[in-house]
């Protein structure tokens, strides 16, 4: 019946486009990387170094480093803290994010 935006009566400016692994998704001004990905229905954007297991947000406040992601070719950004600009290229981070 409600969304968080409705609940807080938020009226952000129109969404802009960013990409996740080349696919276009919409982000609202003020959303972090994690918030934009959640809103797009995506909960995982990293695989672990050893097990290759998927990870996403865990602590949500920048303490756990589980939500690491590559933004504009910079790996290991905390998605729960990193802000977004129009045209930003988010990439799923595999392992250390520095290639093999």
């Amino acid at each position, binding site marked *: 019946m409600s969304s968080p935006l409705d609940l807080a009566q938020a009226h952000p400016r129109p969404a802009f486009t960013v990409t996740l692994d080349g696919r276009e998704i919409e982000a609202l*001004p003020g959303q972090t990387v994690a918030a934009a990905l959640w809103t797009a229905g995506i909960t995982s954007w990293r695989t672990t170094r050893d097990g290759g297991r998927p990870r996403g947000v865990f602590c949500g406040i920048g303490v756990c480093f589980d939500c690491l992601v590559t933004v504009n070719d910079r790996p290991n950004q905390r998605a*729960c803290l990193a802000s977004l600009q129009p045209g930003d290229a988010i990439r799923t981070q595999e392992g250390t994010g520095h290639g093999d």
Partner: protein
Amino acid sequence: MATDRPHLAVIGAGPAGLAATAAAAAHGVRVTLLDAAAQPGGQFYRQPAAELRAHRPQALHHDWRTWERLRDGLDTYARAGAVTHLTNHHVWFAERHADRFTVHALLGPEQEDPVAVQADAVLLATGGYEKVLPFPGWTLPGVLTAGGAQAMLKGTLAVSGRTAVVAGTGPLLLPVATGLAAAGVQIAALVESADPKAFVRRSRALAAQPGKLAEGAGYAARLLRHRARTLTRHTVVEAHGTERLEAVTVAALDGEGRVRPGTARRISCDTLAVGHGMLPHTDLAETLGCHLDGVNVQVDDEQRTDVPGVWAAGETTGIGGSALALAEGHIAGRSAAARLAGRAPDQREWAAAAKSRTRLREFALALDGLYAPPARWSELITDDTVVCRCEEVTGGTIREAVAELGAGDVRTVKLLTRAGMGWCQGRMCAAAVAGLAGCRLAPSRRPFARPVPLGVLAREDTHPTERGSS
């Protein structure tokens, strides 16, 4: 002249830091308030990003009037030039020279630009973070801390799914569940391991806090309206899914804290918000040399640590909630103002705050006895359950280090297995590792409060302590 006034660095802009800032500024101290967030509020009063243009952020909050008072106080003192609020400043180190302090922070979107702030005294209001005890499946995307679910909701107006189970133990679970429900998330169940009978047994300590009880009852009533089912003396025993969370299994607990055979049931959900209490952030206090009592920074009646010139207030001195943080922050700010002016404070000046501090500490102690993870929580950790999320160290590996290699403490387990050696520096797994090793959780003695680029460390060596050095 403002610059002749003594200068206090307050670290953390949550309830404790804001109360301390206002109290110190009101009594003639120049305050620099450093905080990692873009806006004041800390975790408890975390505000939506300004660009989201939320017209009713109070819909996400409890006790909004207190927040307005804190916010307006900060604005007033900042406008008057008594307070400088440095946002987006991630403090990683504080050091004491003879009679001065240097607080080192990183700023910028990548947190690579170093800044150093000089001050006559330091007030630590660094807050806390959530403790989560592991269980099979807890690393699946969709499983997150209860506080994390709340932080994402308050700060970014985002939720991770449509159907959530809120689980664990502690006073945080109810507000998290009601917050998610109000934001349109279906709460499939609230799973609390505490025994409601324990609340009756401690009714005297609780009855001294009518406001707090009413607050809890209010959350419970709202949750009922959302038709959420509440399971007490239950625990999540496993989270299921392959690429993301699909369901959890919950089960009833017996009097010994063991899972009752035959009570397991599966609940479909795409989100599990789970927490087992809070732990204080004490890294900066530890590097300053402050004495810790268990995992808490030890303070005296004036909120002074045992290091001259260092005060501490709020969760960092012991988890107790925002009202206690406000009282402690006020006292710390008043004490710092008096001491920096070279006089011993008259404690009658803050008698009201001291009275609520006593009352709220008693309440926190009572709650601590009520809300407890299942006594046998570590039995839920299977040998292939990942315990250290960063280094992917399993329960089996840690048990082997304990049983076969003789590791009896968190540090030895770390050296033998890498558990706690990753990005989070053991903040997420230390409580679990201590449980598996059969020892008490002790302070971890991290050299820095957050990861620091090597380039910054190299630079700090050659360019010490100038404000805004780059």
